[in-house]
């Protein structure tokens, strides 16, 4: 498995190190999530993920040449889903699922950590949500 860290999802140049988290609490959540995501990555139909906290980032994607595109989508999902939820008075957003013609992406926010899991359309996203929330 190839891992890269990502300081800013919209940047195209990606550093090859994981930037350590600033606090112990955040760090432990980040570590726990990265472990869960590593397991999720092995599931059928999952093609990759991006995990980002306020100070650290990690990704594992099968199509490395499209990293910047996946990162830009993850960033936009975070911004726009909040806008939509605010407009329609939706209580706290737990997760967002966007289905395209080719793939679907699940976006979640756990504290300061933002997770984007990219998968085939037939993959079971409900199962992935459960695994992340455990």
């Amino acid at each position, binding site marked *: 498995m190839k891992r890269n860290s990502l300081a800013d999802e919209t940047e195209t140049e990606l550093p090859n190190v994981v930037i350590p988290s600033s606090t112990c609490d955040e760090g432990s959540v980040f570590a726990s999530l990265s472990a869960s995501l590593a397991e999720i990555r092995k599931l059928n139909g999952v093609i990759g993920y991006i995990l980002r906290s306020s100070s650290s980032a990690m990704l594992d994607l099968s199509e490395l040449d*499209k990293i910047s*595109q*996946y990162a*830009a*989508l993850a*960033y*936009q*999902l975070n*911004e*726009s*889903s909040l*806008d*939509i*939820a605010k*407009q*329609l008075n*939706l*209580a*706290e*957003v*737990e*997760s*967002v*699922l*966007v*289905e*395209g*013609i*080719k*793939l*679907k*992406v699940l976006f979640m926010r756990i504290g300061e950590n933002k997770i984007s899991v*990219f998968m085939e359309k037939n993959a079971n996203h409900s199962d992935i*949500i459960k695994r992340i929330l455990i």
Partner: protein
Amino acid sequence: MTEACSTALQTIISEFRNISPEIASAFVFKKDGEVLASTETVTEDQAKKVSTAIDDISEEADVIGGVETLTIYGVSSQLSVTSMDDCFLAALSSREADEKRVKALTCVVVPTVVRLVNQVSTALPENQLLNIEKPEAKLTEDFEEPEQAEQAEETEQVFEMPEEPTPVEQVVEPLEEPKPMESLPDPLEVDSELIFPKPPVNQFMVEKIGGLLVASNTVRVDKDVVAMWSDLYSDREITQVNVETLEGRTLICKFKPMSKADGNAKGIIKIPEKILRTLNISEGKLVIIKPVILTAREKKS
């Protein structure tokens, strides 16, 4: 999308709660924020902001093949937004809602209806789409309880032309009373009636026509429309039209195609004053025109 199509969409999304009570609200809106149908009040500004947010996601979503659906899961509720041609359907439901059912409604039923409506809109001129709701209204009328039907009959206005040498024919279509079963008609006759196309419906704006040589019981209709009727019913002679006001008053009278002297303006029907008075309408109002096609049996009788 016409008003009639919006009404059709409104009817469908209003039924959502009956099919899946967990669906709290739904609305259909265009990319420019125009709300086409909604079960609860949604402002154009809200719709526009939602549309912009979805557009922002779509711009970055090439990597997954665009945005077909977007679902935002809240703690107790979820919002599902489906992209359909040039508009979106948003449905807010509780997390307990049957996901398959919600998906069937939001991703299959409504998008299919919208696509169908768009296809029909491109195939038919707008004035023929304005009457999409009419059959439904007629159906409810037909299924009224006998008491209600009687009441309706009582309150219905009857329009009669003054007795003059050239009276306009029967004015109001009375509610039909149940008839005893008749003997079965000739099967060949039934077949020919079944394949007969439904009379086309056109909407026109009223203009008054007057003068010494103008028959008081004859309206003038766009000659292109008359030609279209002739094409449709080549083997039938059409001599009368059914004129219906938006208030529901109807009248059957003779018609003539508009001549050059009449100007032959499109979307205009020229009506003599006597008929205008009978229908209680004035110039500039809209009326619906249908050719009166007599079946073989009606002709015989």
